[in-house]
């Protein structure tokens, strides 16, 4: 289906201070488009988690928002380091977050499970040394 809107947000590795800005902008954009509160909440949670993952774990990446008539899609693409064991990474409570992230209250091992729980469709592809791509879509109810 036709993409009505596409926006890209660069996310810098280790930029804890500004983490959440892309998610806040995305939420605001979708709210203006009239997306329901329930869908908005699911997108917000998943979007913030994926944005934080880029800040905490990646070497930098991009968050892309696509809006279609029947769904919202979020794509997170980073330039590494890649996830060696996706199944393990998807396990609730498992985290490889560093001390800095943990001190801030992250690294509870809830990020990827939270994304999967909130998205209608969730896909993760990763290659060590290349990068990780997470694609999440959220159905818009008529």
């Amino acid at each position, binding site marked *: 289906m036709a993409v009505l809107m596409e926006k890209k947000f660069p996310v810098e590795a280790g930029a804890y*201070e500004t983490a*959440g800005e892309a998610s806040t902008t995305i*939420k605001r954009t979708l709210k203006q488009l009239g997306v329901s509160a329930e869908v908005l909440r699911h997108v917000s949670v998943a979007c913030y988690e994926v944005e934080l993952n880029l800040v905490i774990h990646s070497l930098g990446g991009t968050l892309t928002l696509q809006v279609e008539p029947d769904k919202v899609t979020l794509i997170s693409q980073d330039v590494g380091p890649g996830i060696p064991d996706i199944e393990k990474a998807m396990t609730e409570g498992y985290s490889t977050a560093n001390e800095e992230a943990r001190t801030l209250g992250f690294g509870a091992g809830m990020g990827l499970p939270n994304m999967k729980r909130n998205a209608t469709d969730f896909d993760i592809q990763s290659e060590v040394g290349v990068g990780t791509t997470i694609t999440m879509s959220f159905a818009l109810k008529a």
Partner: protein
Amino acid sequence: MNIRELIELTGAKDMTPEASRETEVTCGYTCDLLSWVMAHGKAGMAWITVQTHMNVIAVASLMEMAAVIIPEDIEMEEATLEKAREEGICVLQSGKTAYELCALMAEAGLPGTPREG
């Protein structure tokens, strides 16, 4: 209960007087793990946390919470307060512990959050 009544109840200091005091508070919660709060937070929530950095406001704003309460007179960074004012999130500072605040709020009839699934 609204923010004004929450302030009266807890005796907390309003660090963001610009935010509306008429905002309805629907439930109470305390947790310092931000990802956990993202999974269990609710709109209208009064959230007690010892975390004082910027991401607290990002979480509160994304979840459309009513207020963030910092216990035990912990100081929130000015940059975080500024962010809270920008986002219209009310931040309260209290000398009481998180436990004491929860007890007061519960006694006044403010519910916790229902567990999902």
